[in-house]
Protein backbone atom coordinates (compact mmCIF):
# COMPACT_ATOMS: atom_id res chain seq x y z
CA UNK A 1 0.00 0.00 0.00
CA UNK A 2 2.77 2.38 1.00
CA UNK A 3 4.67 1.49 -2.15
CA UNK A 4 1.64 2.22 -4.34
CA UNK A 5 1.02 5.58 -2.69
CA UNK A 6 4.67 6.64 -3.02
CA UNK A 7 4.58 5.47 -6.63
CA UNK A 8 1.47 7.51 -7.38
CA UNK A 9 2.96 10.64 -5.79
CA UNK A 10 6.16 10.22 -7.81
CA UNK A 11 4.17 9.54 -10.98
CA UNK A 12 2.13 12.68 -10.39
CA UNK A 13 5.34 14.67 -9.97
CA UNK A 14 6.75 13.21 -13.19
CA UNK A 15 3.59 13.78 -15.22
CA UNK A 16 3.05 17.28 -13.84
CA UNK A 17 6.66 18.20 -14.40
CA UNK A 18 6.65 16.91 -17.97
CA UNK A 19 3.42 18.73 -18.85
CA UNK A 20 4.73 21.91 -17.21
CA UNK A 21 7.91 21.57 -19.22
CA UNK A 22 6.24 21.42 -22.62
CA UNK A 23 3.37 23.80 -21.93
CA UNK A 24 5.05 26.67 -20.11
CA UNK A 25 5.89 29.82 -22.01
CA UNK A 26 8.63 31.03 -19.69
CA UNK A 27 11.70 28.94 -20.34
CA UNK A 28 12.85 28.84 -16.75
CA UNK A 29 9.55 27.35 -15.56
CA UNK A 30 9.98 24.68 -18.22
CA UNK A 31 13.38 23.95 -16.72
CA UNK A 32 11.76 23.68 -13.30
CA UNK A 33 9.25 21.20 -14.69
CA UNK A 34 12.09 19.19 -16.18
CA UNK A 35 13.85 19.25 -12.81
CA UNK A 36 10.74 17.97 -11.01
CA UNK A 37 10.25 15.20 -13.59
CA UNK A 38 13.89 14.11 -13.29
CA UNK A 39 13.80 14.03 -9.49
CA UNK A 40 10.59 11.99 -9.75
CA UNK A 41 12.39 9.55 -12.05
CA UNK A 42 15.24 9.26 -9.55
CA UNK A 43 12.63 8.57 -6.90
CA UNK A 44 11.26 5.74 -9.07
CA UNK A 45 14.71 4.15 -9.19
CA UNK A 46 15.01 4.52 -5.42
CA UNK A 47 11.60 2.88 -5.02
CA UNK A 48 12.91 -0.11 -6.99
CA UNK A 49 15.75 -0.35 -4.43
CA UNK A 50 18.30 0.58 -7.06
CA UNK A 51 19.90 3.36 -5.07
CA UNK A 52 22.98 3.70 -7.22
CA UNK A 53 20.89 4.34 -10.32
CA UNK A 54 18.77 6.85 -8.43
CA UNK A 55 21.83 8.86 -7.43
CA UNK A 56 23.36 8.52 -10.90
CA UNK A 57 20.09 9.83 -12.30
CA UNK A 58 20.26 12.90 -10.03
CA UNK A 59 23.95 13.39 -10.75
CA UNK A 60 23.62 13.23 -14.53
CA UNK A 61 20.17 14.60 -15.22
CA UNK A 62 19.94 17.24 -12.52
CA UNK A 63 23.58 18.06 -11.90
CA UNK A 64 24.59 18.16 -15.54
CA UNK A 65 21.63 18.29 -17.95
CA UNK A 66 19.33 20.65 -16.05
CA UNK A 67 22.14 22.96 -14.94
CA UNK A 68 23.54 23.14 -18.47
CA UNK A 69 20.13 23.77 -20.01
CA UNK A 70 19.51 26.52 -17.46
CA UNK A 71 22.89 28.00 -18.28
CA UNK A 72 21.81 28.05 -21.92
CA UNK A 73 18.54 29.73 -20.95
CA UNK A 74 20.48 32.39 -19.06
CA UNK A 75 22.84 33.06 -21.99
CA UNK A 76 20.40 33.09 -24.91
CA UNK A 77 17.88 35.21 -22.96
CA UNK A 78 14.78 33.81 -24.70
CA UNK A 79 11.88 36.25 -24.36
CA UNK A 80 8.25 35.29 -24.08
CA UNK A 81 7.36 37.30 -27.18
CA UNK A 82 9.81 35.33 -29.30
CA UNK A 83 8.16 32.03 -28.47
CA UNK A 84 5.84 30.53 -31.14
CA UNK A 85 2.20 31.46 -30.62
CA UNK A 86 0.30 28.32 -29.63
CA UNK A 87 -3.42 28.75 -29.01
CA UNK A 88 -5.46 25.81 -27.66
CA UNK A 89 -2.29 24.24 -26.30
CA UNK A 90 -4.02 22.35 -23.51
CA UNK A 91 -6.74 21.08 -25.83
CA UNK A 92 -4.03 19.54 -28.02
CA UNK A 93 -2.36 17.95 -25.00
CA UNK A 94 -5.64 16.34 -23.91
CA UNK A 95 -6.55 15.16 -27.43
CA UNK A 96 -3.13 13.68 -28.07
CA UNK A 97 -3.05 11.93 -24.70
CA UNK A 98 -6.43 10.33 -25.50
CA UNK A 99 -5.10 9.33 -28.93
CA UNK A 100 -2.07 7.52 -27.53
CA UNK A 101 -4.08 5.64 -24.89
CA UNK A 102 -4.36 2.38 -26.93
CA UNK A 103 -0.64 2.43 -27.55
CA UNK A 104 0.00 3.02 -23.84
CA UNK A 105 -2.20 0.05 -22.94
CA UNK A 106 -0.29 -2.09 -25.42
CA UNK A 107 3.01 -0.96 -23.93
CA UNK A 108 1.70 -1.69 -20.43
CA UNK A 109 0.65 -5.20 -21.42
CA UNK A 110 4.00 -5.95 -23.03
CA UNK A 111 6.24 -4.36 -20.44
CA UNK A 112 4.45 -5.75 -17.40
CA UNK A 113 5.49 -9.26 -18.43
CA UNK A 114 9.06 -8.37 -19.38
CA UNK A 115 10.45 -8.54 -15.83
CA UNK A 116 9.78 -12.28 -15.67
CA UNK A 117 12.52 -12.83 -18.25
CA UNK A 118 15.20 -11.25 -16.10
CA UNK A 119 16.89 -12.83 -13.13
CA UNK A 120 16.07 -11.29 -9.77
CA UNK A 121 18.80 -9.15 -8.29
CA UNK A 122 19.21 -7.87 -4.79
CA UNK A 123 20.34 -4.28 -4.36
CA UNK A 124 22.54 -3.15 -7.23
CA UNK A 125 25.80 -1.77 -5.92
CA UNK A 126 28.01 0.53 -7.92
CA UNK A 127 30.72 -2.12 -8.09
CA UNK A 128 28.40 -4.64 -9.77
CA UNK A 129 27.21 -2.03 -12.27
CA UNK A 130 30.79 -1.01 -13.10
CA UNK A 131 32.00 -4.58 -13.52
CA UNK A 132 29.03 -5.47 -15.76
CA UNK A 133 29.50 -2.33 -17.85
CA UNK A 134 33.13 -3.09 -18.51
CA UNK A 135 32.83 -6.82 -19.11
CA UNK A 136 29.53 -8.05 -20.53
CA UNK A 137 28.22 -4.75 -21.85
CA UNK A 138 31.44 -3.13 -22.94
CA UNK A 139 30.53 -3.02 -26.65
CA UNK A 140 27.16 -1.24 -26.23
CA UNK A 141 28.82 1.05 -23.70
CA UNK A 142 31.56 2.04 -26.13
CA UNK A 143 29.04 2.45 -28.98
CA UNK A 144 27.00 4.81 -26.80
CA UNK A 145 30.11 6.84 -26.03
CA UNK A 146 30.95 7.07 -29.76
CA UNK A 147 27.38 8.27 -30.33
CA UNK A 148 27.84 10.95 -27.68
CA UNK A 149 31.16 11.97 -29.19
CA UNK A 150 29.55 12.27 -32.61
CA UNK A 151 26.78 14.40 -31.17
CA UNK A 152 29.34 16.66 -29.50
CA UNK A 153 31.40 17.05 -32.68
CA UNK A 154 28.22 17.76 -34.62
CA UNK A 155 27.17 20.43 -32.13
CA UNK A 156 30.57 22.09 -32.35
CA UNK A 157 30.48 22.05 -36.16
CA UNK A 158 27.00 23.60 -36.19
CA UNK A 159 27.93 26.21 -33.58
CA UNK A 160 31.17 27.17 -35.30
CA UNK A 161 30.94 29.95 -37.80
CA UNK A 162 32.03 28.81 -41.23
CA UNK A 163 35.00 30.67 -42.74
CA UNK A 164 32.74 32.21 -45.37
CA UNK A 165 30.34 33.90 -42.95
CA UNK A 166 33.11 35.09 -40.67
CA UNK A 167 34.84 36.70 -43.66
CA UNK A 168 31.62 38.35 -44.73
CA UNK A 169 31.10 39.74 -41.25
CA UNK A 170 34.58 41.16 -41.04
Amino acid sequence: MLEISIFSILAMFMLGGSIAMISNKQTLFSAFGFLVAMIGLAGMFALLDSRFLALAQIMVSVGAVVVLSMLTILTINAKEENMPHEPNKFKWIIVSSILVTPFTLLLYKTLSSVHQNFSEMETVSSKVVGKLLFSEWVLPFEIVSILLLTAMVGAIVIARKSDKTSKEQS
Partner: protein
Amino acid sequence: MSTSAIVIAIISFALGALLALLTIPVLVWLERRVAGLVQDRLGPNRTNIGGFRLGGVVQSFADVVKLLLKEEYYPSHIKSGKWLFMLAPIITFAAALLAFMAIPFADSMIIDGESLRISALPIDFGVFWYMAISAIGVLGVIFGGWLSHNKYSLLGAARASSMVVSYELPLGLSILAFIITYDTVDFNAMVAWQSGTFFGFLPSWGILVQPLAAIILIVSLFAETNRNPFTVAEGESEIVAGFMTEYTAMKFAMYFMGEYVAMNTASAVIITMIFGGYQIPWVSTEMLLENFSTFAVSLMVVVPIIVTILIRWMRKNNTVRPTVSTDGGRDFETKVLTIVMIGMTLLVEAILIYLAFLTDSALANNIAITLFQIVVFVVKLMMFNIFFILIRWTVPRFRYDQVQKLGWYYLLPLALLNIFITAIVVVGVNL
Protein backbone atom coordinates in the same frame (compact mmCIF):
# COMPACT_ATOMS: atom_id res chain seq x y z
CA MET B 1 16.07 -4.28 13.06
CA SER B 2 16.94 -4.52 16.70
CA THR B 3 16.22 -1.84 19.28
CA SER B 4 19.84 -0.74 19.43
CA ALA B 5 19.88 -0.24 15.64
CA ILE B 6 16.82 2.01 15.83
CA VAL B 7 18.25 3.98 18.76
CA ILE B 8 21.59 4.46 16.97
CA ALA B 9 19.83 5.50 13.76
CA ILE B 10 17.73 8.13 15.55
CA ILE B 11 20.69 9.45 17.54
CA SER B 12 22.92 9.70 14.46
CA PHE B 13 20.22 11.47 12.48
CA ALA B 14 19.68 13.97 15.30
CA LEU B 15 23.44 14.43 15.56
CA GLY B 16 23.74 15.10 11.82
CA ALA B 17 20.92 17.64 11.86
CA LEU B 18 22.38 19.34 14.95
CA LEU B 19 25.90 19.44 13.55
CA ALA B 20 24.65 20.96 10.31
CA LEU B 21 22.22 23.49 11.84
CA LEU B 22 23.88 24.46 15.12
CA THR B 23 27.17 25.21 13.41
CA ILE B 24 25.51 28.04 11.43
CA PRO B 25 25.46 30.58 14.32
CA VAL B 26 28.87 29.37 15.46
CA LEU B 27 30.27 29.80 11.95
CA VAL B 28 28.78 33.28 11.56
CA TRP B 29 30.40 34.22 14.88
CA LEU B 30 33.70 32.61 13.88
CA GLU B 31 33.64 34.48 10.59
CA ARG B 32 33.38 37.82 12.40
CA ARG B 33 35.87 37.03 15.14
CA VAL B 34 38.46 35.62 12.71
CA ALA B 35 37.95 38.66 10.49
CA GLY B 36 38.65 40.74 13.59
CA LEU B 37 41.76 38.68 14.30
CA VAL B 38 43.06 39.15 10.76
CA GLN B 39 42.32 42.87 10.81
CA ASP B 40 43.71 43.38 14.33
CA ARG B 41 40.43 44.30 16.00
CA LEU B 42 38.01 42.51 18.29
CA GLY B 43 34.81 41.77 16.43
CA PRO B 44 31.40 41.47 18.09
CA ASN B 45 31.70 40.63 21.79
CA ARG B 46 29.19 42.82 23.64
CA THR B 47 25.83 41.08 23.19
CA ASN B 48 24.92 39.05 26.24
CA ILE B 49 22.14 37.16 27.92
CA GLY B 50 22.27 37.74 31.68
CA GLY B 51 25.96 38.57 31.59
CA PHE B 52 26.93 35.56 29.45
CA ARG B 53 28.69 36.63 26.28
CA LEU B 54 30.43 33.34 25.42
CA GLY B 55 32.91 35.38 23.46
CA GLY B 56 30.15 36.89 21.32
CA VAL B 57 28.25 33.83 20.06
CA VAL B 58 25.10 35.45 21.43
CA GLN B 59 25.40 38.05 18.66
CA SER B 60 24.50 35.41 16.06
CA PHE B 61 21.26 34.59 17.87
CA ALA B 62 20.45 38.29 18.02
CA ASP B 63 21.00 38.37 14.25
CA VAL B 64 18.57 35.50 13.78
CA VAL B 65 15.93 37.39 15.76
CA LYS B 66 16.57 40.47 13.64
CA LEU B 67 16.22 38.55 10.38
CA LEU B 68 13.01 36.87 11.57
CA LEU B 69 11.40 40.17 12.56
CA LYS B 70 12.38 42.06 9.42
CA GLU B 71 9.75 43.08 6.90
CA GLU B 72 9.13 40.50 4.17
CA TYR B 73 9.44 42.61 1.08
CA TYR B 74 8.61 41.49 -2.43
CA PRO B 75 9.91 43.52 -5.36
CA SER B 76 6.80 44.78 -7.14
CA HIS B 77 8.24 44.09 -10.58
CA ILE B 78 8.11 40.33 -10.03
CA LYS B 79 4.83 39.49 -11.70
CA SER B 80 4.85 35.73 -12.26
CA GLY B 81 6.49 32.97 -10.32
CA LYS B 82 6.52 34.47 -6.85
CA TRP B 83 6.33 30.93 -5.44
CA LEU B 84 9.49 29.92 -7.28
CA PHE B 85 11.15 33.16 -6.17
CA MET B 86 10.44 32.08 -2.59
CA LEU B 87 11.34 28.45 -3.22
CA ALA B 88 14.77 29.23 -4.72
CA PRO B 89 16.63 29.97 -1.45
CA ILE B 90 15.00 26.92 0.13
CA ILE B 91 16.36 24.71 -2.67
CA THR B 92 19.88 25.98 -2.05
CA PHE B 93 19.59 25.58 1.71
CA ALA B 94 18.00 22.13 1.59
CA ALA B 95 20.55 20.81 -0.90
CA ALA B 96 23.46 21.96 1.27
CA LEU B 97 21.82 20.48 4.37
CA LEU B 98 21.06 17.12 2.73
CA ALA B 99 24.56 16.79 1.27
CA PHE B 100 25.96 16.84 4.82
CA MET B 101 23.93 13.82 5.86
CA ALA B 102 26.16 11.14 4.33
CA ILE B 103 29.25 12.10 6.35
CA PRO B 104 30.27 9.54 8.99
CA PHE B 105 30.86 11.07 12.43
CA ALA B 106 32.45 7.96 13.93
CA ASP B 107 33.38 4.44 12.97
CA SER B 108 30.59 1.88 12.61
CA MET B 109 29.57 0.50 15.97
CA ILE B 110 29.35 -3.26 16.22
CA ILE B 111 26.58 -4.26 18.63
CA ASP B 112 25.65 -7.94 18.81
CA GLY B 113 27.41 -8.61 15.53
CA GLU B 114 25.41 -5.90 13.75
CA SER B 115 27.43 -3.13 12.15
CA LEU B 116 25.70 0.23 12.67
CA ARG B 117 26.78 3.35 10.85
CA ILE B 118 27.14 6.59 12.79
CA SER B 119 26.03 8.88 10.00
CA ALA B 120 22.69 10.58 9.49
CA LEU B 121 21.93 8.49 6.41
CA PRO B 122 23.37 4.97 6.59
CA ILE B 123 24.35 4.66 2.93
CA ASP B 124 27.47 3.02 1.55
CA PHE B 125 28.07 5.35 -1.42
CA GLY B 126 28.43 8.66 0.33
CA VAL B 127 30.63 10.16 -2.39
CA PHE B 128 27.87 9.75 -4.99
CA TRP B 129 25.35 11.18 -2.55
CA TYR B 130 27.49 14.25 -1.96
CA MET B 131 28.17 14.81 -5.68
CA ALA B 132 24.51 14.34 -6.64
CA ILE B 133 22.86 16.40 -3.93
CA SER B 134 25.33 19.28 -3.79
CA ALA B 135 24.83 19.79 -7.55
CA ILE B 136 21.19 20.71 -6.90
CA GLY B 137 22.22 23.72 -4.79
CA VAL B 138 23.21 25.87 -7.74
CA LEU B 139 19.71 25.50 -9.22
CA GLY B 140 18.34 27.65 -6.41
CA VAL B 141 20.89 30.33 -7.26
CA ILE B 142 19.90 30.27 -10.95
CA PHE B 143 16.15 30.41 -10.21
CA GLY B 144 16.65 33.26 -7.74
CA GLY B 145 18.87 35.23 -10.08
CA TRP B 146 16.58 34.84 -13.06
CA LEU B 147 13.30 35.53 -11.28
CA SER B 148 14.62 38.72 -9.67
CA HIS B 149 14.30 40.36 -13.11
CA ASN B 150 17.36 42.40 -12.39
CA LYS B 151 20.52 42.68 -14.46
CA TYR B 152 22.84 42.33 -11.48
CA SER B 153 21.00 39.24 -10.25
CA LEU B 154 21.04 37.72 -13.71
CA LEU B 155 24.78 38.32 -14.05
CA GLY B 156 25.37 36.81 -10.61
CA ALA B 157 23.32 33.73 -11.47
CA ALA B 158 25.09 33.29 -14.82
CA ARG B 159 28.47 33.61 -13.12
CA ALA B 160 27.54 31.20 -10.34
CA SER B 161 26.22 28.55 -12.69
CA SER B 162 29.09 28.74 -15.16
CA MET B 163 31.60 28.61 -12.31
CA VAL B 164 29.93 25.57 -10.76
CA VAL B 165 29.76 23.82 -14.15
CA SER B 166 33.44 24.45 -14.81
CA TYR B 167 34.61 23.39 -11.34
CA GLU B 168 32.42 20.29 -11.20
CA LEU B 169 34.84 18.67 -13.68
CA PRO B 170 38.09 19.03 -11.69
CA LEU B 171 36.17 18.20 -8.52
CA GLY B 172 34.78 14.99 -10.01
CA LEU B 173 38.13 14.01 -11.52
CA SER B 174 40.04 14.58 -8.27
CA ILE B 175 37.42 12.56 -6.37
CA LEU B 176 37.83 9.86 -9.02
CA ALA B 177 41.54 9.71 -8.22
CA PHE B 178 40.65 9.15 -4.55
CA ILE B 179 38.11 6.49 -5.50
CA ILE B 180 40.80 4.66 -7.50
CA THR B 181 43.24 4.90 -4.59
CA TYR B 182 40.84 3.87 -1.83
CA ASP B 183 38.95 1.42 -4.06
CA THR B 184 35.63 2.43 -2.52
CA VAL B 185 32.86 5.03 -2.75
CA ASP B 186 31.99 4.68 0.92
CA PHE B 187 33.09 7.56 3.15
CA ASN B 188 33.46 5.25 6.13
CA ALA B 189 35.68 2.79 4.23
CA MET B 190 37.73 5.77 3.01
CA VAL B 191 38.39 6.80 6.61
CA ALA B 192 39.27 3.23 7.51
CA TRP B 193 41.76 3.11 4.62
CA GLN B 194 43.42 6.28 5.94
CA SER B 195 43.99 4.89 9.43
CA GLY B 196 47.10 2.97 8.41
CA THR B 197 50.62 4.27 7.96
CA PHE B 198 52.54 5.09 4.86
CA PHE B 199 56.34 4.75 4.43
CA GLY B 200 56.32 3.39 7.96
CA PHE B 201 55.84 6.64 9.83
CA LEU B 202 53.52 9.03 7.96
CA PRO B 203 49.78 8.67 8.57
CA SER B 204 48.29 7.52 5.26
CA TRP B 205 46.01 10.53 4.93
CA GLY B 206 44.75 11.42 1.48
CA ILE B 207 46.71 14.65 1.45
CA LEU B 208 49.99 12.73 1.81
CA VAL B 209 49.08 9.87 -0.51
CA GLN B 210 47.51 12.04 -3.22
CA PRO B 211 48.83 15.59 -2.70
CA LEU B 212 47.88 16.88 -6.16
CA ALA B 213 44.35 15.53 -6.08
CA ALA B 214 43.97 16.87 -2.53
CA ILE B 215 44.89 20.39 -3.59
CA ILE B 216 42.57 20.22 -6.60
CA LEU B 217 39.78 18.94 -4.35
CA ILE B 218 40.23 21.78 -1.86
CA VAL B 219 40.38 24.46 -4.56
CA SER B 220 37.34 23.17 -6.43
CA LEU B 221 35.36 22.84 -3.20
CA PHE B 222 36.15 26.48 -2.45
CA ALA B 223 34.69 27.34 -5.85
CA GLU B 224 31.69 25.04 -5.45
CA THR B 225 30.74 26.66 -2.14
CA ASN B 226 31.08 30.20 -3.54
CA ARG B 227 33.64 31.18 -0.92
CA ASN B 228 36.41 33.69 -1.39
CA PRO B 229 38.54 33.89 -3.53
CA PHE B 230 35.74 32.61 -5.79
CA THR B 231 32.92 34.99 -4.76
CA VAL B 232 32.49 36.39 -8.28
CA ALA B 233 28.78 35.50 -8.11
CA GLU B 234 28.18 38.11 -5.41
CA GLY B 235 31.08 40.51 -5.83
CA GLU B 236 29.87 43.73 -4.19
CA SER B 237 32.19 45.97 -6.13
CA GLU B 238 30.97 44.68 -9.50
CA ILE B 239 27.40 43.42 -9.34
CA VAL B 240 25.97 44.68 -5.99
CA ALA B 241 25.11 41.41 -4.25
CA GLY B 242 24.69 39.18 -7.29
CA PHE B 243 21.78 36.79 -7.14
CA MET B 244 20.85 37.94 -3.62
CA THR B 245 20.20 41.58 -4.57
CA GLU B 246 16.39 41.42 -4.48
CA TYR B 247 16.14 39.16 -1.48
CA THR B 248 15.24 40.40 1.99
CA ALA B 249 14.72 39.13 5.53
CA MET B 250 14.34 35.38 5.91
CA LYS B 251 14.66 34.69 2.17
CA PHE B 252 18.07 36.36 2.21
CA ALA B 253 18.93 34.52 5.41
CA MET B 254 18.20 31.21 3.67
CA TYR B 255 20.85 31.94 1.03
CA PHE B 256 23.19 33.22 3.71
CA MET B 257 22.76 30.15 5.90
CA GLY B 258 22.89 27.86 2.88
CA GLU B 259 26.36 29.23 2.14
CA TYR B 260 27.56 28.40 5.63
CA VAL B 261 26.02 24.94 5.59
CA ALA B 262 27.68 24.32 2.22
CA MET B 263 31.00 25.46 3.68
CA ASN B 264 30.51 23.15 6.65
CA THR B 265 29.69 20.27 4.31
CA ALA B 266 32.73 21.00 2.18
CA SER B 267 34.95 20.97 5.29
CA ALA B 268 33.41 17.69 6.36
CA VAL B 269 34.04 16.16 2.93
CA ILE B 270 37.63 17.44 2.92
CA ILE B 271 38.47 16.04 6.35
CA THR B 272 36.71 12.76 5.60
CA MET B 273 38.42 12.25 2.27
CA ILE B 274 41.91 13.60 2.86
CA PHE B 275 42.46 14.31 6.56
CA GLY B 276 41.56 10.98 8.09
CA GLY B 277 38.00 11.84 9.10
CA TYR B 278 37.13 11.12 12.68
CA GLN B 279 40.41 9.37 13.45
CA ILE B 280 43.49 10.73 15.14
CA PRO B 281 46.66 9.98 13.14
CA TRP B 282 48.41 6.62 13.55
CA VAL B 283 45.57 5.18 15.64
CA SER B 284 42.81 3.05 14.16
CA THR B 285 39.54 2.07 15.81
CA GLU B 286 40.67 -1.53 16.34
CA MET B 287 43.79 -0.31 18.13
CA LEU B 288 41.66 1.86 20.41
CA LEU B 289 39.33 -1.04 21.20
CA GLU B 290 42.20 -3.43 21.94
CA ASN B 291 44.15 -1.04 24.17
CA PHE B 292 41.18 0.62 25.77
CA SER B 293 42.70 1.10 29.26
CA THR B 294 45.83 2.77 27.81
CA PHE B 295 43.60 5.02 25.75
CA ALA B 296 41.46 5.90 28.78
CA VAL B 297 44.48 6.69 30.97
CA SER B 298 46.10 8.88 28.32
CA LEU B 299 42.78 10.68 27.83
CA MET B 300 42.61 11.18 31.61
CA VAL B 301 45.96 12.95 31.42
CA VAL B 302 45.27 15.00 28.31
CA VAL B 303 41.79 16.33 29.14
CA PRO B 304 42.79 18.21 32.37
CA ILE B 305 45.77 19.77 30.58
CA ILE B 306 43.58 21.08 27.77
CA VAL B 307 40.96 22.35 30.23
CA THR B 308 43.62 24.09 32.35
CA ILE B 309 45.03 25.86 29.30
CA LEU B 310 41.50 26.86 28.27
CA ILE B 311 40.68 28.24 31.73
CA ARG B 312 43.92 30.21 31.95
CA TRP B 313 43.32 31.60 28.47
CA MET B 314 39.78 32.60 29.42
CA ARG B 315 40.89 34.24 32.70
CA LYS B 316 43.50 36.25 30.84
CA ASN B 317 41.28 37.37 27.96
CA ASN B 318 37.79 37.68 29.38
CA THR B 319 38.55 41.02 31.05
CA VAL B 320 38.25 44.63 30.09
CA ARG B 321 41.30 46.83 29.66
CA PRO B 322 42.87 47.92 32.99
CA THR B 323 42.15 51.60 32.24
CA VAL B 324 38.41 50.95 32.16
CA SER B 325 36.66 50.33 35.47
CA THR B 326 36.17 46.61 36.06
CA ASP B 327 33.20 44.86 34.56
CA GLY B 328 31.47 42.68 37.14
CA GLY B 329 29.54 40.77 34.47
CA ARG B 330 32.67 39.39 32.86
CA ASP B 331 34.13 38.26 36.18
CA PHE B 332 30.88 36.50 36.97
CA GLU B 333 30.88 34.77 33.56
CA THR B 334 34.49 33.67 33.97
CA LYS B 335 33.73 32.28 37.42
CA VAL B 336 30.67 30.31 36.29
CA LEU B 337 32.36 28.96 33.16
CA THR B 338 35.42 27.88 35.18
CA ILE B 339 33.20 25.95 37.59
CA VAL B 340 31.29 24.37 34.69
CA MET B 341 34.49 23.35 32.92
CA ILE B 342 36.07 21.85 36.04
CA GLY B 343 32.85 20.03 36.84
CA MET B 344 32.65 18.55 33.35
CA THR B 345 36.30 17.51 33.50
CA LEU B 346 35.69 15.75 36.81
CA LEU B 347 32.68 13.99 35.32
CA VAL B 348 34.67 12.84 32.29
CA GLU B 349 37.49 11.63 34.55
CA ALA B 350 35.05 9.69 36.74
CA ILE B 351 33.47 8.04 33.71
CA LEU B 352 36.90 7.17 32.30
CA ILE B 353 38.08 5.69 35.61
CA TYR B 354 34.92 3.59 35.78
CA LEU B 355 35.36 2.39 32.19
CA ALA B 356 39.07 1.68 32.47
CA PHE B 357 39.29 -0.07 35.83
CA LEU B 358 35.89 -1.01 37.23
CA THR B 359 34.11 -2.59 34.29
CA ASP B 360 34.98 -4.47 31.17
CA SER B 361 31.77 -4.16 29.22
CA ALA B 362 32.67 -4.08 25.54
CA LEU B 363 29.56 -2.07 24.72
CA ALA B 364 30.50 0.72 27.13
CA ASN B 365 34.02 0.88 25.67
CA ASN B 366 32.54 0.99 22.21
CA ILE B 367 30.24 3.89 23.09
CA ALA B 368 33.11 5.78 24.75
CA ILE B 369 35.29 5.43 21.64
CA THR B 370 32.40 6.51 19.39
CA LEU B 371 31.89 9.63 21.51
CA PHE B 372 35.62 10.34 21.40
CA GLN B 373 35.63 10.01 17.61
CA ILE B 374 32.66 12.36 17.31
CA VAL B 375 34.58 14.93 19.40
CA VAL B 376 37.66 14.49 17.16
CA PHE B 377 35.45 14.92 14.09
CA VAL B 378 33.91 18.15 15.40
CA VAL B 379 37.31 19.58 16.35
CA LYS B 380 38.72 18.80 12.89
CA LEU B 381 35.58 20.20 11.25
CA MET B 382 35.90 23.47 13.15
CA MET B 383 39.61 23.71 12.34
CA PHE B 384 38.89 23.36 8.65
CA ASN B 385 36.04 25.86 8.86
CA ILE B 386 38.49 28.33 10.39
CA PHE B 387 40.83 27.62 7.49
CA PHE B 388 38.01 28.47 5.05
CA ILE B 389 37.37 31.72 6.94
CA LEU B 390 41.06 32.65 7.14
CA ILE B 391 41.37 32.24 3.37
CA ARG B 392 38.36 34.47 2.86
CA TRP B 393 39.89 37.32 4.86
CA THR B 394 43.42 37.06 3.47
CA VAL B 395 43.12 36.35 -0.27
CA PRO B 396 41.53 38.96 -2.56
CA ARG B 397 38.76 37.98 -4.96
CA PHE B 398 39.75 36.64 -8.38
CA ARG B 399 38.55 38.34 -11.52
CA TYR B 400 35.90 36.35 -13.38
CA ASP B 401 38.11 35.38 -16.32
CA GLN B 402 40.88 34.33 -13.94
CA VAL B 403 38.45 31.99 -12.22
CA GLN B 404 37.49 30.34 -15.50
CA LYS B 405 41.11 30.16 -16.63
CA LEU B 406 42.19 28.50 -13.40
CA GLY B 407 39.45 25.91 -13.73
CA TRP B 408 39.85 24.99 -17.39
CA TYR B 409 43.54 25.62 -18.10
CA TYR B 410 45.20 24.43 -14.91
CA LEU B 411 42.99 22.33 -12.66
CA LEU B 412 41.34 20.17 -15.33
CA PRO B 413 44.57 19.05 -17.12
CA LEU B 414 46.28 18.52 -13.77
CA ALA B 415 43.39 16.38 -12.54
CA LEU B 416 43.47 14.32 -15.75
CA LEU B 417 47.22 13.85 -15.45
CA ASN B 418 46.79 12.83 -11.83
CA ILE B 419 44.25 10.17 -12.79
CA PHE B 420 46.72 8.70 -15.29
CA ILE B 421 49.51 8.61 -12.72
CA THR B 422 47.20 7.13 -10.09
CA ALA B 423 45.97 4.45 -12.47
CA ILE B 424 49.54 3.51 -13.44
CA VAL B 425 50.63 3.30 -9.79
CA VAL B 426 47.57 1.31 -8.71
CA VAL B 427 47.93 -1.15 -11.59
CA GLY B 428 51.69 -1.39 -10.96
CA VAL B 429 51.19 -2.13 -7.26
CA ASN B 430 48.58 -4.79 -7.98
CA LEU B 431 50.68 -6.58 -10.62
